[in-house]
């Protein structure tokens, strides 16, 4: 994969102005890290690139989430067709009513600045909370939210046509994060692949869906310290329930899958 160029983009936005076009400066990126998830069906993701967060964390990973994360192939595996599949199941495990998986590059890969992108299909249904995101690699030293968090993609399964991009940092974490949303006026993120990306520079972070810039956050926009000048590592997960998304209902269809075609990082 060589350098790619971003050129003229024409896409619909939730502003109901589908004819709107964006003119972005051309930029050359060179690939620094990627996973195309090639491998046999049922195989675990490449252990040189990914590690697992397992169990329930503290207080449901800080959000009263209901799932128990495992590294079992039922919850996380390649599908043999070039995709990573994270599957949330309705099953009692480790005292929790659901299982799922959360994989990260922590300790294996982190990078400061650049373009971070994933092409994926989301799960859906009330209480499903998939995310493609990053945390500051210094989290063990300075802890969250001082380390900073860049949410490239997260969504509430009861709104399968809306994606959120957010920054969490000191003074603007949790419910007061700096966030923007992108809604498909007549489509859903679970029915087709979409490309989610951030382009992170010293002075700004741009959020893209299908190469359409829908949010730009600069140090002036955040209500606290700008902490995005350290390397960040990547995370992919599907949470079930919790304070952000609400709880699943008896009508929430299970199993639910997040299907990731690739993750790529450029400098």
């Amino acid at each position, binding site marked *: 994969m060589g350098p790619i160029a971003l050129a003229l983009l024409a896409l619909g936005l939730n502003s109901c102005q589908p004819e709107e076009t964006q003119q972005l400066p051309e930029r050359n990126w060179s690939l620094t890290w990627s996973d195309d998830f090639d491998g046999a069906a049922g195989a675990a993701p490449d252990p040189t690139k990914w590690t697992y967060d397992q169990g329930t964390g503290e207080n449901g990973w800080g959000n009263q989430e209901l799932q128990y994360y495992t590294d079992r192939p039922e919850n996380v595996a390649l599908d043999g067709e070039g995709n990573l599949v994270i599957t949330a199941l309705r099953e009692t495990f480790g005292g929790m009513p659901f299982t799922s998986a959360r994989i990260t590059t922590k300790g294996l890969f982190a990078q400061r600045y650049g373009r971070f992108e994933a092409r994926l299909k989301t799960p*859906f*249904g*009330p209480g*499903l909370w998939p995310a493609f995101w990053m945390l500051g690699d210094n989290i063990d030293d300075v802890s969250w939210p001082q380390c900073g968090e860049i949410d490239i993609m997260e969504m509430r*399964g*009861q*709104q*399968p*046509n809306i994606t959120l991009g957010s920054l969490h940092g000191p003074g603007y974490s949790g419910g007061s994060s700096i966030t923007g949303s992108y809604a*498909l*006026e*007549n*489509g*859903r993120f*679970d*029915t087709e692949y979409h490309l989610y990306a951030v382009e992170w520079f010293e002075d700004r972070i741009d959020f893209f869906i299908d190469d359409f810039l829908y949010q730009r956050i600069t140090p002036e926009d955040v209500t606290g310290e700008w902490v995005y000048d350290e390397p960040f590592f990547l995370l992919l997960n599907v949470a079930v329930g919790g304070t952000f998304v609400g709880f699943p*209902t008896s*009508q*929430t*269809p299970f199993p639910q899958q997040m299907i990731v075609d690739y993750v790529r990082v450029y400098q």
Partner: protein
Amino acid sequence: MKTNYINNLIGTAIAALMVFSVGCERPIDGLEPAQFPVEPNVFIDGFSAGLEYAAFGGSDVSAFEVVDEGAYKGTSVMRFAVPDFDNASGAYAGGAFFVPGGRDLSGFNVLTFWAKASKSANIDILGFGNDLGENRFVTTITNTPVTTNWQKYYIPIPDPSKLTQEKGMFYYSEGPEDGRGYTFWIDEVKFENLGTIAPRGGGIFNGVDSTVTAESGAEFAANAYGLFNLPNGVDMRVEASAAFFEFFSSNPSVASVDANGLVTVGDEGEATITATLAGRAATGSLAVTSTGAPVVPRVAAPTPTEDPADVISIYSNAYTNEPIDFLNGYWEFSTTLSEEIQIAGDDVVRYSQLNFVGIQFTAPTIDISDMTRFHMDIWTPDQTAGASFKILLVDIGPDGTFGGNDDSSHEITLSSPTLQSETWLSIDLPLTSFPGLTGRGNLAQIVLSGDLPNVYVDNIYFYDDGQGGGGPAGGAPEAAAPTPTLPAADVISLFSDAYTDVPVDVFITGWSEASLADTTIAGNAAKIYSDLNFVGIETIANQIDATGMSHFHIDMWTPNATSFGIKLVDAGANGVIEGAGSDDVEHQIDFIAPNQGEWISYDIPLSDFTGLTTRANLAQYILVGQPSGTSKIYIDNMYFHK
């Protein structure tokens, strides 16, 4: 009153009771003749172009109205007034909105509308595709919750590409909630093409991989549903016509399947029926094991030998059969198929896929009061271990209609080892085996059921074996009347084996409305009066002087009489019966609701016959039965005593 109406609605031709149409003059120049209009709107602020409405049969036809008050949007809204339970003008609200010319809906993927109600309720049926005709692509959601707030509803189209000329735009049916009516409103009904509706596939045969073993010719109909995820992330299942699906058989010569999901079993072998919906594999399948050509009895059933005079036959070559309505009513939920075949020249009914089946004869019903036994020959190729076969006899009573509180029935169950595979079994039972069948004057149905899917049936008849045994509710008492114990010197007997009878002119006069038969019950003579209204017994030639007697005695047994009367007539001193104004005296005593099916000994003081002021010339004894003309009584031990 929930989903009971589905079967009434679909496929029912219903008169158009209310027809609305909104004039919308479209220029016809330039229209492609084969193209159907692409018009998404059904009801926005009025009927869209060409839309008509018809209320369903049995519904309250005034339930639907367009009103200009309380619209969700715009000026007008559809209001549906669901009637109370037992409402005289209709039991429910229901109807179809249709476009006789058809529309091309293939560019849309969902029917949407807004609805609210005067109270929280679940609407039984909402959908589209009901065109009051072929109903080929019916799509339905059931028990849809509505509240007092406007809410948007979605009914996804299972496969829009099928709807290139759809007539059925919208239909509904709703009964009272807990017996009470209410009102709901529906507005902004239109087809849309929403990317926020995610198809999740469909299912056939309830979404289950099911298996069945059947003979050639058996048929199975696939049911079907579509599954969609709505914009709020919640799945919705819509009941869909199987015609939306493409069906496949892994081996069409063993099991074929048509475009409407009807599976027909063929040659011996195995085949699996699967389907796709809009290109996606459907959940559920039917694995068919065909046992091939039906296993047929090689010999005919034994030929009956009963005297035709003693037989009432429903189905037999040996006798003249009574007229019957049908050998298979194809009742709802019955899977039974039937045909008449010949085995060694003998007609036989072949039932297959039998779960239950009714043989009916109502025009007229059959009176088996004089019969004592039921006979039916059956033959099954199926394994009988653990299986049962049931026979239900149904009498619909004197009113001649089902229901009405005078019906009676009784079901018997046969099982192994009585049931045997591949051999003719002659079921021959006394009617006493059917004690619940308390009426036998209006037999109307024989219902067969059980878990033998293949049963051949022949020689269904009732007969009188001359041994009585018709049982408590049937034609005859099993035991003789109690033997009298009074000394003969104290008795003047007209009819009794216990005494020497005096001469009796006649036990049935010409003017009687009844028929008489002599019979023997357990060796004891008795009189049977059938079709009784009243019967006269006379001793005019040898009139009886009962002035020395204190009681009149008669033993009576009836299977069906609801009233029994005894009238004694004294001819008076002139010894001539002359009627009113003469010296004749008479008195009648009626006994209401006598116990049926048992001997009753009436021992009546003569003083109770208060009008019988003289008793020296007793000449007439009139017995009266109700129901008039159909009651039946057995008589024994008729005498005076002191």
